[in-house]
Structures are given as C-alpha cells and as structure tokens.
C-alpha cells in the first residue's frame, strides 16, 4: 500500500466506456418521455413584435418567457443572460421558446410553421460597447514609461475556439413530484445548474435535483451553458408534468453554445538604455458576445496572466469585455489565459528580436523566481523549477541545435513557450463564492463513498479521488466508491473547473480521509464532512487586483517543431516536447493524458482551428467545416513530469487540466515564425494568413 501514488492504474471507468455501457445523456430514455426542440432567433438584433404560433395538436406545448415562474435570467454572476428572449433578441440563435411533444416529426413541423415577427435593428460586431472593464497596476508604471529610452508596441489577435467535445450538450428530466424536478445531464457543474434552476423556478432548493450522466468531453463548454438549457427544460417539465429529453445535434451545438473569446491585446514595453524591459503596459479586449455570462471572470484571469512566467517590476494592465451581437462566449480550458499567454510570449520574442538579442537568453533573464512578486503584487511562495524544466525540454527536443540549423535551412522552425497557470479559482473565489464542502461516508462493510459534486468528464477525477482515499485510508481501491454525483446526495464541493478538482476538492477529500482514519472503527458507519478554509496568508483584494490571485501555480514548457510548405503554406507538425510541474501527479498516465490532449488543443488553437462569423452568423457549423486535428495531424509528443510537491495539495498535487493547453499556441506560432521568417501576430496561423505574410515584403 505504500507505493507511490503517481503509479498508474487502469482508469476505473475505462472498461464500461470501452464496452459502450457507460450511459451518456443521449443514451437515457424514460418511458412516456416527450422531446423538446428550440425556436431560435434568425437575426442578430431586433425587437420582437410578435411570435405567431400555429394551432398546436393536442399533447404539444410551447414554453416561452411567460412560463418562467422566477426571473428571466440564468443565475450566474450578472443578471443579464435571458432564459428565453422576451422583447428583444441579441444574437442569431438566441432561444425564444421550446416546442415540446412526443413526436419529433410533429415538433419540427410546428417549428417550421412558426412566424417570428422581429423588427431588425442594426447589430454591433466591433469592439465599441464595453460592458466590463478592469485595471490594475504593479510598481510605478507611469514614471517608468516616461523615462523609457524607447517604447515598443505590438498588437496580437486571437480567434474563436470551439470546445468540440464529441458528445453534444443535452439533458433529460422528469417531474419527481408536482413540485420537484429532476434533471440528468452532460454537465461540469451540478450546483451551478441546480442554483440556476432554483432561481428560474423560484422554488425551494429541495425541489431541484441534478444528476450527472457520463460526460463525453466538456473542456469548459459544459460549465455555464448547461444552466441555460436546464432552466428551459425544468420550466417545461413543471408545465407539462412529463419527462422530457432535450439533446442538441451537432450543428445546433456548434451554432449556439459558448466558445473561447476572440481577443485583441496591445502590449507596450518600456525599454531602458541597456535594452532591459523596465515596464509593461497591456490592454486587452475580449469579445464577450451578446451576454456577459462568465466573461468578467475570464477577463480577470487573462489580465492576471499578463506577465506569464516572467517577473516585470512595473505594470499597467487594463481590459474590457465588449458586447457584440454574436453568440455569447464563455469558459474554455485555460479561461482567458491562452489569449494572454499567446500575446506575452510572442511579445517577449518580438522584443528580443527588435532589440537584436537572442530570444532564448533574453526571455530567460526575466523568468520568475521563488520570492518574486506576481503580476498582482502577490508572492511566488513556492519553489520554481523552470530553469531545470527548460533545460530538460531543450535537451529532449535538441532545441538549440535546431535553432542554429534552421537559421539557414528554409521552411523549418522550432518554437518554445514558457507558461504558468494559477490553480483554482481566481482571487477569493474559493472562499467567498464557492466555499466547497465534501463528505466521506463509510458503511458497515467498511466501504467508503466519496460524496462530492466533482464530475469526471474524462480527465480522471473518479480515479484520482478514489486513489487519494484508498492511499490515505490504506484500503484497497475496490473498497472506495465514487458514483455519478446527485445533488440530493452530495454536498456542493464546487464546480468542476479551474483545475481545482485535484488540488482543492482532492485536498478536502484527503483531509476527510485523514480524519476518518483517526476515527476508524471497523464495521461501524461513519460520516466525515470537510469545508474549505482559505489559508490565512492568502490575501486578495478583488477591487484593486492586489494580492495573491492563486494559492499555487503549475508551470510548463512546450516546444513545437514544424515544417511549412512554400507551395501550399500548410504547416506540418514534426514534433512536440513538453515538461510540466503539476506538483505531484496523482496518476502519471492520467496526467500524461491531460498533457497530450491539452497540448493538442493548444497547438491546434495556434495553427489549425478556424471559426469566424459573418454578420453574426458563424460560418463553421459542423465537424466538417470546423477542423480539429485527426490522428494524422498530431505528431508524437514527448512529455516529462517533474515532482515539485505543493504543501497544501493532496500528496503535493496542483492543477493539471488547463496548464497543458495554454502554451501550445505561442510555441507553434514561434515555430512557424522561424520557418517563414516573418513575425506572427495573429492566431490561428492558417495557410491563408501564412501566404499573406510570405508575400508581404514590408515586414
């Protein structure tokens, strides 16, 4: 039992999933259930004059804003995102009503006969209307910029990214009693859904029950959006008192669910006489889409990541979320950090070149060290082992030799990114907003049940949490259980987001296990509850962005090598090498799997995945047009993990899920830049963009 917890075991749900036995929401049917489809706005902005419904056959029902018992908002941070459009529509695809009934053919028939009388208004697509703005400083940026020998300025842009989980979104639900609604869904955050539905139904929390189905990928896409459809479905169930299933098809899912925010970031560096960076000014613009949703939180993570893995003394950072009449953008693995890390990594690289310095040594000088101040004037308390990680990565990839060789060899390039990711919620989120609670229950056969709201969406939470309990209690894996959580059964341990599950939830589960161990009496039932307590040394001021934004940081290095065709401008990935510090891997294979998958998403974000809208209509609506990598597109990756245990994490674990995505884009962009010898300032770096750069002789 004393073996190293990192030693891998078969993922505990792998066999059921392979046999096709795992029940995803689409696989669940309930006798007598109805189906629901959604009526949506065909235009980007307008005033609803009237919706003309045809006469409905018996057993068919329309559900719209008039049926909402509570407020017409999806309860999140701001009260702005409507459950059903009421008097205006703000984006193409905005839900207006559900059509509910038994036969899908009839539903679509009704749908096609509905006439929406909507008076079009001029939609807004440019960054003009700021709905959130944040700013903060570190040190004393103004005088530094005034005294600078020169100021170098660049602008970086990033596009949409679609989560493209292979299982589209959906829920099935039923009335448990006349008052109580039960919803089973593909979700990341059971209690987000529950709280939103409680508010929509204006009912007692006991009247809403949310159960997780097997989740076929999420990546942030099932963080806030499911709350919207859960509210709609719950209202329909309350009204019809029938079980109802609402499953998105791919095109619907891609056209209306949240995506990664497109961004535009302007970076300025104050340079002194010795060519040192003395200060940085950054201004970030995120396209929030029609409703704010989580955009403010995404913006703060982006802003805080401004100096990434570097320390810069003086900073002036600001950013806005802009409202546009497009699909609302939201959570996606990395949560604002990928946009900012692309900007700062490229900027550091471009600064070095403009200052005629070797980019590698230039960037190394600014690498953050233990004891340095973070971008928000907090403290990097724990050991930082980046130099060792960088050395390992460069050796694995033969980075330095290749950089030399590719100076003269055309069409080949190699790029390296450094990055960090703050683990857990930003700022005081954990203590003020979440206040996580976990429960361990032991029965009289000494079997232990983990009762948390954490969702295994493929990232291995089930396996790692069970491993923690088994190791700590020193009982066999088979004696520990973690079933799909059900809000009637599990306390609110918080959402499955922000790379917090292993570190925060796992940490609490471990504390509970330790307490259970001390109270252990064989064959006697026992229950232990643990609540999150913020370590006292973490001080954070939400208003000024000052203090420790995160309790801990995970770190990483990505190297990507490419070949660019001078004929077709296509990028071929030749190799990917990564080194990560996630504290301690709770299961080595699981972390390496996160690394492979996250890096693939991050690299593809940088060069492959294209999504654009035209007048608010997304042009890529299916898996044929929205291109994600196939096995042939991805090169073999080599990943190395270093242990660097974090005192407060279970067995030293920090976050691993998001970290592996955030560095891919700048690494591949730098590699392409080397291959074509033109600076890259925009991702995805598509062949079309590469062609433009190669034919543009001004650069």
């Amino acid at each position, binding site marked *: 039992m004393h073996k190293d917890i990192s030693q891998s075991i*078969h993922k505990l749900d*792998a066999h059921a999933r392979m046999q*096709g036995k795992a029940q995803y929401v689409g696989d669940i049917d309930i006798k007598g259930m109805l189906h629901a489809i959604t009526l949506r706005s065909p235009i980007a902005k307008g005033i609803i004059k009237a919706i003309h419904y045809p006469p409905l056959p018996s057993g068919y029902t329309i559900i719209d804003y008039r049926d909402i018992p509570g407020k017409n908002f999806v309860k999140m941070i701001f009260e702005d995102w409507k459950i059903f459009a009421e008097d205006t529509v703000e984006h193409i695809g905005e839900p207006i009503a559900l059509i509910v009934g038994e036969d899908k053919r009839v539903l679509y028939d009704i749908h096609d006969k509905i006439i929406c009388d909507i008076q079009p208004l001029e939609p807004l697509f440019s960054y003009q209307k700021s709905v959130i703005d944040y700013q903060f400083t570190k040190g004393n940026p103004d005088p530094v910029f005034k005294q600078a020998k020169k100021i170098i300025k660049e602008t970086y842009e990033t596009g949409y990214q679609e989560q493209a989980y292979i299982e589209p979104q959906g829920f099935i639900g039923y009335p448990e009693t006349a008052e109580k609604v039960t919803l089973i869904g593909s979700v990341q955050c059971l209690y987000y859904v529950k709280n939103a539905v409680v508010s929509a139904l204006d009912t007692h929390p006991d009247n809403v029950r949310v159960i997780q189905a097997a989740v076929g990928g999420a990546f942030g896409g099932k963080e806030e959006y499911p709350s919207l459809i859960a509210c709609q479905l719950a209202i329909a169930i309350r009204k019809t008192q029938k079980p109802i299933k609402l499953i998105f098809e791919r095109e619907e899912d891609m056209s209306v669910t949240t995506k990664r925010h497109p961004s535009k970031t302007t970076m300025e560096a104050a340079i002194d006489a010795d060519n040192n960076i003395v200060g940085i000014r950054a201004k970030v613009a995120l396209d929030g889409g029609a409703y704010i949703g989580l955009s403010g939180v995404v913006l703060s993570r982006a802003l805080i990541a401004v100096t990434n893995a570097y320390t810069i003394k003086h900073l002036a950072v600001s950013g806005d979320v802009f409202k546009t009449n497009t699909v609302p953008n939201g959570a996606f693995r990395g949560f604002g950090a990928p946009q900012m890390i692309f900007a700062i990594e490229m900027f550091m690289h471009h600064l070095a070149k403009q200052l005629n310095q070797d980019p590698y040594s230039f960037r190394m000088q600014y690498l953050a060290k233990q004891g340095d101040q973070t971008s928000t004037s907090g403290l990097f308390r724990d050991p930082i082992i980046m130099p060792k990680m960088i050395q390992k990565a460069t050796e694995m990839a033969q980075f330095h030799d290749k950089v030399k060789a590719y100076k003269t060899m055309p069409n080949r390039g190699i790029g390296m990114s450094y990055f960090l990711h703050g683990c857990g919620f930003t700022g005081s989120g954990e203590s003020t907003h979440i206040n996580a609670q976990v429960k361990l229950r032991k029965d009289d056969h000494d079997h232990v049940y983990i009762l948390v709201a954490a969702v295994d969406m*493929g990232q291995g939470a089930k396996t790692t949490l069970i491993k923690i309990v088994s190791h700590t209690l020193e009982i066999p894996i088979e004696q520990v259980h973690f079933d799909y959580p059900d809000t009637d059964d599990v306390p609110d341990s918080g959402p499955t987001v922000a790379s917090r599950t292993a570190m925060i939830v796992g940490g609490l589960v471990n504390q509970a296990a330790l307490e259970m161990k001390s109270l252990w009496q064989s064959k006697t039932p026992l229950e232990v509850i643990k609540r999150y307590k913020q370590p006292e040394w973490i001080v954070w001021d939400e208003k000024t962005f000052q203090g420790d934004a995160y309790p801990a940081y995970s770190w990483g290095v990505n190297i990507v090598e490419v070949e660019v065709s001078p004929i077709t401008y296509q990028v071929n990935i030749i190799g990917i090498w990564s080194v990560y510090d996630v504290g301690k891997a709770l299961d080595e294979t699981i972390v390496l*799997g996160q690394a492979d998958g996250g890096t693939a998403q991050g690299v593809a974000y940088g060069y492959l995945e294209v999504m654009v809208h035209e007048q608010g209509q997304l042009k890529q609506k299916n898996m044929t047009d929205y291109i994600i990598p*196939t*096995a*042939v597109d991805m090169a073999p990756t080599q990943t190395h993990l270093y242990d660097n245990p974090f005192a407060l994490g279970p067995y030293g674990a920090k976050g691993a899920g998001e970290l592996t995505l955030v560095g891919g884009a700048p690494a591949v962009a730098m590699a392409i830049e080397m291959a074509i010898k033109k600076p890259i300032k925009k991702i995805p770096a598509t062949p079309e963009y590469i062609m433009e750069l190669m034919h543009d002789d001004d650069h």
Partner: protein
Amino acid sequence: MMTIKFMLNGTEQTIKTDPSRRLLDVLRKDFNLKGSKEGCGEGECGACAILLDGHITNSCCLPLASVHKRSIMTIEGYAKTARFDVLSNSFAEAGAVQCGICTPGMILAAESLLNQNPAPTDAQIRIGISGNLCRCTGYNMIVKAIQSAAKRGEGLW
C-alpha cells in the same frame, strides 16, 4: 416499410421498417444498442462506427437498406470477443480512454485496421483511425494502445 434481414452481433435479425432510416437510429432505437454514439451525424467523427462484414463504417450515413443480407457487429457484440479483451486491456493500460465517447468507434477502427494489417506501423495506425475524432487524448496513447495490442494479440488477427 420493407423487411430487412441482416446479421447483428452474430444473430439473424428481421425488421420491418422504413429502409431509408440511418442504421445508427435503428441500432439505438429498435435494438437498444446504445454503444454507437451520434457525435456529428454527418460521417465526420466516427463515434457511430460499426463493423460491416468486419470492416469499419459509419452507421450515421448508412441506410438500413444497405445492410440487407449483410453482417453487422456493434461494440456490444465485439465486446464479447477475445480480440476486444486484448484491445481493451491495451487501451486501459495506455490511458487511451478519457471521456470515452469516441472509444467504442476507436476500438472498432483498431479492430478493422488490425484485421487488414496485423502489424501496422505508427503511421499506418494514425491513418487507420483518421476518421475517428478524439478531442480528449491527442491520440498518442491510442496509437500506443493499438501498437501494444498488435504485439500482445499476436496470432489473434
């Protein structure tokens, strides 16, 4: 309405229905075989893959009529074979299963590949699974799993 006859997981089945229906819908609805998933409904992702006379194909773009007098195996049937045991153990060991929504299709793609080529190179494996999209794994562990199944299952394919 037409009567369609086909072998399904080793048993002969006769079903009277609209023959233009997608095989995927017939499997999931009429036979309650939910291991084949709908990821895209347009032939692109491979989540709905099945074996048609031992070769992978996508059940979301195959009309039921086209399998008349032919033989289908779904993951539920394949899961009872010795080859599945080898593949699934290799998948579990390599970490090739994350959310699992692509996995039944991926396993059938691996079976189809190994059936044609029992000792594939990594590059051949990548081509063999190129119609099966996986958003979670980045594919490396899947390639490794199929490679190791090919070695362990020597003689089975």
